[in-house]
């Protein structure tokens, strides 16, 4: 396992580097940059002083340098005008749109995104595990049909639609506004017990909204896998030998059925992040999603790049955890048709 751990870490390093390159290329792909767009506007209005300022910024941030050098400076592996001063040194760059350092613009958004997505994953697992096991063990019972129905509703309903429905119902029947991720008095304030409680209260609805489709999918997968295992001959043999049902279930079938469940951690993270971006716009959540969309639209390259890199790193770490858990749970060889699944 130690060898696997070391090999897997080693795979992660080039993966992150490649992701950072792709991220940088993507944010550079549209013609021009934020400053050149601004310059075009200044030219048309004849604002000479502002144009000089923009030219200074262009030189200051090395936007006139080759792309490879810009990338190295951005990441912090190549010295820029201020020596090594990139992401690895904690300098996320400058937001041209807000005219502030990216770290100040981002503020708590990255942490709140992380908290929201992490809580959603916990919610998905906490809800889908017992329901998945129940529906497999009690196949075709009333409970199974009821859960299956709820699961299909969850799968078929777009997150943003569910968010809108809950916002409407909350306002109409309870008179509360469910938007945001904390009460207004705590926005911009330092973390306190009151702010933490406010975040917890406001997070319930977004977590349900973002997690519903993931939960429904996970229930279906766990149910199908467990049913497959329960029909195998070793289960029949164990039953014939008089092993009690719950002992039999816990010993092997459940462990085997957990594999895809664990393997899905890696897939779940990108789904959550992309899903939460749309929900965040609908529910006015102060997470990274809406700001990322704005940054991409306005070509605020350092802001967009920081968000994309953070989210990609989160996904790579999720895949890493998922692979480690899978290797610990079931280090089996899978060849032929199983390998391609």
């Amino acid at each position, binding site marked *: *396992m*130690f*060898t*696997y*751990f*070391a*090999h*897997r*870490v*080693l*795979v992660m*390093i080039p993966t992150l580097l490649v992701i950072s390159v792709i991220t940088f290329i993507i944010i550079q792909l549209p013609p021009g940059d934020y400053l050149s767009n601004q310059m075009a506007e200044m030219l048309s209005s004849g604002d000479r002083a502002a144009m000089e300022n923009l030219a200074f910024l262009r030189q200051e941030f090395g936007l006139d340098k080759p792309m490879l050098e810009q990338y190295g400076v951005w990441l*912090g*592996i190549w010295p820029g005008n201020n*020596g*090594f001063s990139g992401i*690895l*040194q*904690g300098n996320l760059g400058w937001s041209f749109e807000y005219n502030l350092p990216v770290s100040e613009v981002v503020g708590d958004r990255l942490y709140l995104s992380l908290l929201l997505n992490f809580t959603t994953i916990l919610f998905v697992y906490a809800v889908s595990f017992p329901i998945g096991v129940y529906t497999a063990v009690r196949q075709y019972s009333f409970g199974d049909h009821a859960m299956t129905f709820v699961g299909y509703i969850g799968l078929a309903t777009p997150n943003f639609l569910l968010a809108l429905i809950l916002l409407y119902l909350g306002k109409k029947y309870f008179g509360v506004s469910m938007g945001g991720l904390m009460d207004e008095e705590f926005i911009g304030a330092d973390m306190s017990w009151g702010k933490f409680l406010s975040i917890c209260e406001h997070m319930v609805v977004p977590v349900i909204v973002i997690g519903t489709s993931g939960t429904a999918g996970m229930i279906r997968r766990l149910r199908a896998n467990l049913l497959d295992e329960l029909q*195998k*001959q*070793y*289960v029949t*043999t*164990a039953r014939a030998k008089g092993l009690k049902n719950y002992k039999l279930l816990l010993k*092997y079938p459940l462990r*085997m059925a957990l594999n895809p469940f664990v393997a899905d951690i890696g897939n779940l993270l990108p789904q959550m992040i992309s899903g939460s971006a749309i929900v965040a716009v609908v529910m006015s959540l102060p997470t990274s999603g809406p700001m990322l969309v704005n940054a991409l639209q306005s070509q605020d390259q350092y802001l967009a790049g920081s968000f994309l890199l953070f989210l990609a790193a989160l996904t790579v770490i999720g895949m890493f955890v998922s*692979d480690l858990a899978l*290797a610990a749970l*079931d*280090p*089996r*060889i*899978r*060849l032929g048709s199983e*390998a*391609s699944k």
Partner: protein
Amino acid sequence: MNSHRYPMKALAADYMRSAFGVLLPAALMLFTNLIPVVFYSMGALILLFAGYGLRTAWRHGTVLTVDGNGVRQEGLVGGFLDREIGWAEMRDFRLRYYSTQRDRTGGWMQLILRGGENRGVIRMDSHLPGFDDIVRQAHAATQNNGLALDPTTAANLSSLGLTSADPGLASTQEKSPS
């Protein structure tokens, strides 16, 4: 009696991994001014890959001797990590498969043998020449000792052509000592 050593070809790749894993973070720590969280992460990477390098060096000096009585591991560290497990006293047999690729190909197997009291554990992997023969002998000992196999081991054994293809069936069959 057969003696087995890890070939330099397999070890060279591990030495290179270790060197890469130590030198890249060390260069970043030395030449750039990292923020604390990145600095400590790089430190952890250096420790991890230094450990990996030491382990590779230990494997480099290890000789595994297998005969009809059991398996013996002799190596560096002044005999501190030397082990000997007789087939008759073997109490656990596990065969694991690890791969870092998405399609799970190109991986390696690890054999874990556990002896009786105070006999310790012997680990070896499929880079060792003659690995299949050692697995075959250890599996025969497992059957003679009436040991149960977990489904993972059974499935991996079947991939080597040693047991039934159905891991569950194989495990239940072998739980009954002959």
